[in-house]
Every structure is written in structure tokens, then in C-alpha cells.
């Protein structure tokens, strides 16, 4: 189980995350929603161990991140929001680099890398440098890299960004199967439709604080668009019609 307790992060005088606590159980897919600047990416970076919290505690399968960050990070696969990778490498070379850094045995890499490339439809481009890859192709490489070491926790930051319909559907099905096998999936996104289709629970963040935490099934029972309406209410968003009218007036010179 992933346990976050009182996670707080300050950047100088700015409080980005204020005492956030949540649990993530094996087999669960949790959707993490929030407006821009609410602290979603900060939470993700804390959970994967790229940032250290100013206060609070994280533990995964009984391992406290503060006590043994290396063992903690070894259990995690991460797909970042932007497909940042070393684009001068080919997809196979990048996966080999990641596999080696993760200390996976040669035999496992020899079978897993070509298979993952084939399954993620990257096989035809396996000898091409990733500088020529589209965002979707790079995203698929990152998904393969995150899965390569068969992690217990998968942290995904907008993983569907850039993926076409087929690749998106494949990833959705894959995530459901991984959860079915007992993996924990922490899924940060802006897409309500994906949360409704994929997640068992949703956590909504606003101004660095959790303002809502509910099972997704509750929203489904209350009718269509319920999640979106609840999100707008919970995050204190105003009615957007006047704002849209102001924009229209501005561009038409009024």
C-alpha cells in the first residue's frame, strides 16, 4: 500500500502542497484531479521521489521514502507529463539504458525490450533515433520504460497526452489489467472521461489541498457530468460564461 501522510511542499515562500494525505491500495487506480497550479505535479514528483517533501511522510509497501529512498524508488514506474527522454537514442537503446540502470538481467532485457517494442507498435521504428518520433511515440516509449522492471506502483502524469485513439485504448486496458494483478496505479490527469472509465476512486486537489475524495462509482450513480460539476464546485471555479464573453469582447475589439 502507498501511504501519504501530511505531505507539504514549500518553494521558498510559496506553499505548493499543504498537508495532503491519502492511501492507495493494491489493485486500485486512483485518479488525481485538480486545476492548473493546484499541486498535482508537485504531488507526483514527491510520490516518485524526485522531490523531497518539506514535511510529511511517504511509505510504499512498508518502506519509508525518507529511510530508504533507493529501495522505495525501485518499486515505482513513472510516466512523466512531458515525454522527456534522450531523443538521440533509439527506443531500444533507451529501454536498454533504463533496464541496465534498473539492474535487470540481460536475459530479461533480451526478451522484454523487443516484445514491448512490438506490442507498443514501435518495432518498425526500433532503429530510428527518437528525434524523429511524434509525441505519442515518445509517450509509448516512456510507458514501456515504466513497465520494464514490473513495478508495484505505477505513477502516470497525463499518460494519454499525444496518444492516438488505439494507443489510448490499449493503455487503458493495460492499466486495468495491471490493477487486476494487484498493482497500484496513481493517475494524475485533467480528463474526466478517463477517470470515469478507469479509476476506482478520485482525489481532487485545489490550491494545494485535498477538497474531495470519493469512489468514482458514486458519481456514476448520480448521473452524467456529475464528476465535472462536482469538480467545478469543489475547486471553487466560477461560472465560465461571463469569462468567455469577456474574451470574445476583447478579440472583437469591444
Amino acid at each position: 500500500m502507498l501511504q501519504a501522510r501530511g505531505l507539504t511542499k514549500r518553494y521558498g515562500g510559496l506553499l505548493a502542497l499543504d498537508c495532503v494525505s491519502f492511501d492507495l491500495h493494491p489493485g486500485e487506480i486512483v485518479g488525481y484531479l485538480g486545476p492548473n497550479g493546484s499541486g498535482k505535479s508537485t504531488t507526483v514528483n514527491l510520490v516518485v521521489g524526485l522531490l523531497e517533501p518539506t514535511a510529511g511522510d511517504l511509505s510504499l509497501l512498508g518502506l519509508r521514502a525518507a529511510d530508504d529512498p533507493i529501495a522505495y524508488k525501485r518499486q515505482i514506474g513513472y510516466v512523466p507529463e512531458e515525454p522527456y527522454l534522450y531523443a538521440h537514442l533509439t527506443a531500444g537503446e533507451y529501454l536498454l539504458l533504463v533496464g541496465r540502470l534498473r539492474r535487470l538481467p540481460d536475459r530479461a532485457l533480451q526478451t522484454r525490450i523487443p516484445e514491448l517494442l512490438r506490442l507498443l507498435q514501435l518495432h518498425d521504428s526500433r532503429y530510428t533515433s527518437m528525434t524523429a518520433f511524434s509525441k505519442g511515440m515518445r509517450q509509448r516509449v516512456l510507458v514501456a520504460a515504466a513497465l520494464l522492471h514490473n513495478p508495484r506502483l505505477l505513477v502516470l502524469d497525463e499518460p494519454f497526452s499525444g496518444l492516438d485513439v488505439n494507443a489510448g485504448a490499449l493503455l487503458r486496458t493495460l492499466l486495468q489489467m495491471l490493477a487486476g494483478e494487484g498493482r497500484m496505479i496513481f493517475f494524475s490527469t485533467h480528463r474526466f472521461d478517463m477517470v470515469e472509465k478507469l479509476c476506482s476512486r478520485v482525489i481532487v486537489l485545489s490550491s494545494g489541498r485535498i477538497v474531495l475524495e470519493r469512489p468514482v462509482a458514486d458519481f456514476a450513480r448520480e448521473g452524467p457530468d456529475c464528476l465535472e460539476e462536482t469538480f467545478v464546485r469543489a475547486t471553487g471555479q466560477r461560472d465560465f460564461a461571463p469569462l468567455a464573453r469577456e474574451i470574445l469582447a476583447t478579440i472583437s475589439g469591444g
Partner: protein
Amino acid sequence: MRDRPVVVLVRHFFISLFDLGILSDEGAESLKRVLLGILALAIAAGLLLTRVFMTKYGMLAGAAPEAYAREVVADHAFLMALPMWIVAGAMSLVGQSLFPDETDFRILMAEPLSRTEVFAAKLGALLLFGGLFVAGSHVGLLPVAALTLMGTANTGSIIAAAVAFGASTLVASLFAALGIVAIHGVLVLLASRRRLLAFSGAVRIVVIAGLLLALPLVARLPASAGAFEANAWWLAWAPPAWFAGLERWLLGDTTRGMLAARAMAATIGAAAIAVFAYVRLYRRFDRVTFQSGGAVRSPGRPPRIARWSRGAPVQHAVLRFISLTIQRSVLHQGLVVGLLAGTGGLVLNSLLSADWHVDAEADTAAVWTLLWAPMAMVFLSVPAIRLALSVPLDLHANWIFRMAEDVDGRAEVAEASVRAVLALAVALPIALMAPLQWWVMGSGCLVVVLVEASIGWLLVEFLLAGWRRVPFTCSYIPGKGFIPQMCVKAFASYVVFTFATGLMLQASLRHHAVAVGLASIFGATAAASRLRRARHARQTSLLFEDQVPSDVTPLRLYAD
């Protein structure tokens, strides 16, 4: 006028030519300080050059007009070669930006801009950029040129001589700039999109290495008056000599007609190719920009996983990462090749100066040069390659190393970096010099190589003792110290190191027991340093930039 799209675009392209796209704000500030330091050094060198020429022309004041004219032609070849070298170097450094490219097509063609405006702006920015270097280099050399033109033994009109020299040197610089544009133009038209980056990187490597290796030859031009008088064969292959010939021909010396013809033919040829490439690209911008590319490697080739040896997987991963980056990143290729060729140029200069006649005394001097040369190359190459490994590739992509860091991995990362430096900065220079040493010293050079290798290893261990970073993953902040102090320290260390190691190698060559003793001492010390480094590395986490993959970065047009 200031806000016209073409003007805005020219400004954008011009600024982009100076943007390396690799430095943080702090690093960029620091780089400015370094550039100012280099500028100050260049001015000081220009003043020194003027002083040297003043002495020379003072001595020539009473010489016969023929002797004076003979010296002037060689000196003018040198004064034309320097701006040519600077302009060619600057243009090849921005080789990937000499023509509008795919980024321009995708971004600018979507804006309400015509193709003519984009091309005109690109040309305008290039003219400004090239003009800046042409003007800067000529202004710096103006006092020396004036000195050579106003000698008392000059019998002709000073104004005519100045006009001829000015015209010839400007045409020479134009040829240098157009030559680089023409080479890249041919590449843009012929290479596929995916290979273009690799090819332009390769061309840049060849040009930079060639320029740096040519520097000692340029420095020898003032001493080539005899060669000009005898019309030596090599003048036909030395571009600065063509333009010095053009100057003499403009002043009425018909014996230099062939050199002048070569100068004009070369300039017109380079201009024709450059113009053709621009026109062709202008007409077929979309098709040329998006022509399909071949694969990096043939699809039938199996992955290299099987070749990797067992044990130390992180070390192998990092070594492979270093190797691929140096093969494919234009910036890092340029750095490694530029720095190694620079040290090679220094050594080449000494080798050219050495007396290779086989008599007892000269033989000793030649042997000393051959003992000194590899150690000089090692001393300069080790910090140079260490520097190349410190220049970042894509800071946002380093998160994968941070996610996968472990205790043993830290030591393996340091070991991989040390091995890369050993291969490029120690093994390569020693291997390059070994055949020459064998030729002069015979089999005795084997013990010398042994001692050289042990000294090189110790130097690498010393300079990388505290290495805590994955290569190419941290911001590079140049010039952290006080530049003049650093220069003095580096020069003093260089002199002491090369002199001391030269003496040791000389003793090793005479007494093989000394060689075995020295190699044992240096090897044991290096091995102990290696153990200490590995222990220290395990206890210290790797150094990373505090930048995470969700940070937003501004769009960098023309960044590599």
C-alpha cells in the same frame, strides 16, 4: 521599421545564432564573463602581435625593397589567414542554422509570413553574423596591417597597397564564409532529413578539427617568405597564399597570376554553390525539408544487448550512453573533437619545429619532443574531455537517472566516466604518438608507453577523484573562478607537468628499471585512488540539477 516582420525575424535568427541552448541563466551569465575574458585575452594577443611585428619591421627599415616586399607578401598571407580562420570557425559552429530548416518551416510557415521574408531574414541574420566576425577580426589586425603597409622600404603607393590588401583580405574572408555555406548547402540538398543532423555534425567535426590542426600552419606563414619567392608547390594548396597572390597581382605583379586565378575561381565557385543551394531550397522548401530519411541503422541488425558483458550493468549503461551521445550529439561531438584537435594542433606545431635530421644532437631533440608530446596531449585532453562530459544534453531527461540511482550504481557511474576519459584523453593520444615513437626510438618506446599510461591513469584519477555526476546531466557553469588566475595556474601546471614527466620518460628510456619502478609507483597510486574513489562514491549521492520533468520550459527556436 523596427517592428516589421522581417526585422523581427532577422533579430530572432541573429540571436539564435548565439544561443547554445544548453546553459541555465546562471550558466549563460557565467559564459558572458568567460567570453569577455577571452576577448580581453584576444586584445592582449593582438597587442603582442603588433609588438612582434614592430620589431620585425624596425629591422627591415633599412633593408632593400626586394627583401621588404618578400617579407610583406608572407605577412599579408598570415594577416588574411587569421580572419579567414575566425570566420570559417564561426560559420561552421552555427552550421546547422545556415539554412532555414524544418523548425522554421513548421513554425514560421504557419504564421502570416511569406517564404521570401523568411529567407531574406535568414540571409540578413547570416550577413550580420558573418560581418560581425569579418569586421571584428580585421579591426583587431588593423595596426599590424598598417605597420606592414607603411614601411619605409615600401616603394609603391601606400593607398594602392592598402586598397589591394583590403580588397584581397575581404574577398578571402568572404571565401571562407561562402565555403562553409556551400558545404552545408550541398548537405541540405543531398542528405535525407534524418541523416542531415549526423552529416552536418560530421562535417563540423572535420572542419573544426581541420581548422585547429591548421592553426600551427597559419602561425608559420610569416616565416614563409622564402617559399613565396621560390613559388613553392604547397602555395597552390594553401588558400591564404591564393589571396596574398591576388593582392600582388592587383598591384601589378603578373608572376602571381596563377594564385590570383585560384583565389577568384575558388570564391566564385563557393558563391555559386551557396547561391544555388539557397535558390533550390527556396523553390522546394517543403519537399527538401521533409524528404524522407533512412534509418539510423539497417533494420536487419540485431540489438547489441548480447554484446554487453556481465556485471556492473550501470557502468556499461553509462559508458554506452557516453559513446552514443558523442557519436550523435553535434554539440558534444564538436566539443570532444574541437578540444582534442586543439591539443593535437599544439603538438603538431612542436613536431613541425623539431629537427628531424639524424645526427646525434638532433636525434636527442627529436626524442625529447616525442617524449614531451604525448604528455602534453594527455595533460590538455584530460580536463578537456572532463569538460565535455560536464556539458548537459537535456536536463529534463535526467529524471530517469534520478529514479534509478542506487548505492553501487554511484560508484559505477564514476567508473564509467573515468573509463571514458581514460579512453579518449589518455589511450588515444598515447596510441597516436606510439608509431612515431617506435619509428624514432625503436622497441625502447614500449617502456615509455607503459610509464605514459600509468602517469595518464594517475592524472585522470586525480582530476576525477570527486566526480559525482552522470555525464551530460548537470548544468554547465563555465568560468567559476577568476579567469586570469585560472590561466596562470593552468599554464604553470602545464609547464611543470610536461617538463617533469618528460624527464621521467627520458630516464625510463635510458634505464628500463627506472621505467618499471615509475610505472609501478604511479600504477599503484592510481589503483589506490580508484579504490578510494569507489568507496567515496558509494557514500555520496549523485549530483543532479534540481529540475523535474514537469517543469515548464519556454520554446527555444533553433535549440539543438
